[in-house]
Every structure is written in C-alpha cells, then in structure tokens.
C-alpha cells in the first residue's frame, strides 16, 4: 500500500536545486537528532545516579535495621 501511495506522488525536481534543499532539511533534522541524543544521554545518567542513590539508601536502611534486631534479640 505504501509503495502504491509513493508511486502516486508527483516526482520531485531534484536535478536543479535538490542538493541545497536536501542539505537544509538534513541540517535541521541532524540538529534535532543530536540534541535529542544529548538529552537521552543526560536522562540515562540521571537514571544511573538514581539507581546508585537507591542502592545506598537501601544499604543504609539495612544497616540501621541490623543493630535494632540485635538489641531485640538480647532483650
């Protein structure tokens, strides 16, 4: 279906200024792509830091729980 739809579309006159037009649109999409990639890297860093913080908090909570359990067993 997509193939027949594409066949119906008028041909683009790329022979004249095609490289300039393609260049302009590629620049825009490349910039957006680079920007989104940078943001995705930052987001993955946040996720990593969050996981690290969570692990630290869980370790701290476990360490707090252990002496309390020891005290209760002594009593």
């Amino acid at each position, binding site marked *: 279906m997509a193939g027949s739809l594409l066949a119906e579309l008028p041909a683009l006159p790329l022979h004249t*200024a095609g490289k300039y037009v393609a260049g302009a649109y590629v620049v825009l999409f490349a910039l957006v792509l680079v920007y*989104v990639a940078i943001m995705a890297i930052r987001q993955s860093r946040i996720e990593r830091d969050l996981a690290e*913080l969570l692990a630290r908090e869980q370790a701290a909570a476990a360490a707090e729980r252990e002496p309390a359990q020891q005290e209760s067993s002594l009593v």
Partner: protein
Amino acid sequence: MYGKGLRELSIATVAVMAVALALVFFWAPLEAEQGFLQKIFYVHVPLAIVSLCGFVVGGVFAIQHLRTRDSRWDMRSYVAIHMSLIFGVATLITGSIWAKGSWGHWWEWSEPTLVSFLIVFLLYATYQPLRFAIEDPERQSRYASVFAVTAGAFVPLNFIAVRLSSEYLHPRVLGATSNLPWQMSLTFVVSLLGVALLFTTLCKYELTVKHTRMQLRALRRLAERRDGATSGATSARRARSAAPSVHATAMTARPPRAAGGTTGAAGAPRVARPGS
C-alpha cells in the same frame, strides 16, 4: 511537573511536522523564479521567526524572574534562550545554503537581514559565558535575567530597523509586499506551527530533564547531609555551572515571596533537614 503532557505534545509535533513536509514537497506549487530551491523557505523562515520569538519569550520569563525572584522563571528563561540559540544555528545554516543556491555565495555582508540576525545570535551567544563567569548562583540568575530583558528588547527593535531599511537583497515573505499564493501561505503557516511545536516540545523536554536532575541532586544532598551528621563528614560543594539552580522547595511548591527563592551561598539548593 514539567513532564506533564510531554507525550501528547511530542505526538502533535511529529504529526504537524509530517503534514508540513508532505505539503511542502507534494502540494505547494513551485515558485516561478527560484523553483525547487524555494522549498528551503518553509524551514528557514519559521526557524528564524521561532528563534527570535524564543529570545523575546526568554526576556519575558526573565522579567517574571526579576519580579517574583522565583528561580523557576530563571530556568525557563535559560531554556528558552538556549533553545533559540540552537534554532538560530539552524537558521544561519539553512539561510547560508539557500544563499549559495540562489546568490552563488554562502554569505552577503552587505545584506542587513543576514548581518542583523548574526548580531542578535552573537549577542545571545554571550549569555552562557556570562552565566558561567558568575559563581554566586543568586547573582548569576539576576544578572542573566537583566541581560535577557535588555537583549530581548533589542530583538524587535533590530527587526523593525531592518524592515525600515530600503536596500536589501533578502526576499520579504511577510507583510504588504508579499503576494504568496494561498497554497504557499497555508504550507508556510503549517510549517511555522510545526517548528513552533518543535521548539515547545524540546523546551519542555529540557526543562523536564533539568528538573529531574535538580530533584536528584537535592535528594543526594539530603542523603549526604544525613550521612555527614552521623559520620561527621561534610558534603561536597556543587560544581560550577552556567545552568540555573532551582530552589529545592520550588520544585514541589511555589515558594513564598518573602523567602526570596534564592539558593545558598555555595549554589546548593536549600534542602530542609529531615524532621525540621
């Protein structure tokens, strides 16, 4: 907070951009003089308009920041200007490509439209170094806001001055002198809408990432303080940055005006101690 509605906005942006591209390449008629090269107009002009509007919006946010001292406005102003700079780069590159195809050279120094846009772009290119040069976050945000307001006022003045100029090569597509066929006008409006939506989506995306990072930083500081209270260690100082630091309470609720909405001396967001 900032992530709300981001998905819907992203879908709308992709849909409008796709429609705009289809209209540009398969529906809008070819221009008589420039032919296919004129298709650059549908991306270059919206980019320039949105970029200049973004600078002005950054100035409006900066006014809000100076009025309320709420650091969230500073963050919005920063993101709007940052995004406008990126769109400005795209404007300059697409404009140069068009100039090469139309005039035969990449740049024309005697053309007021081009040079004035470059001046505005270079003016705003100093925004981030200005922020980075000031270590104290309170002063950094205040000075940056003053800069954003002043430069934001310069943008429309510059635009009007160029429009009043009588000698220019750059085509005028908006205003009384333009006689675009309705198909071209409609395609242009859809393209403008698509680029404006792209700007808004990317701004929202950046605000969401920055906001999440600030929250994480505040959480870590809280944990470090608690650990420091038990072990006697002191928490590490925040690294120097051009990006605004948002007040910890501003992330969840609107801070009272009297509180100032400022950060600590070392740039660390003020975080309430547990139980305080």
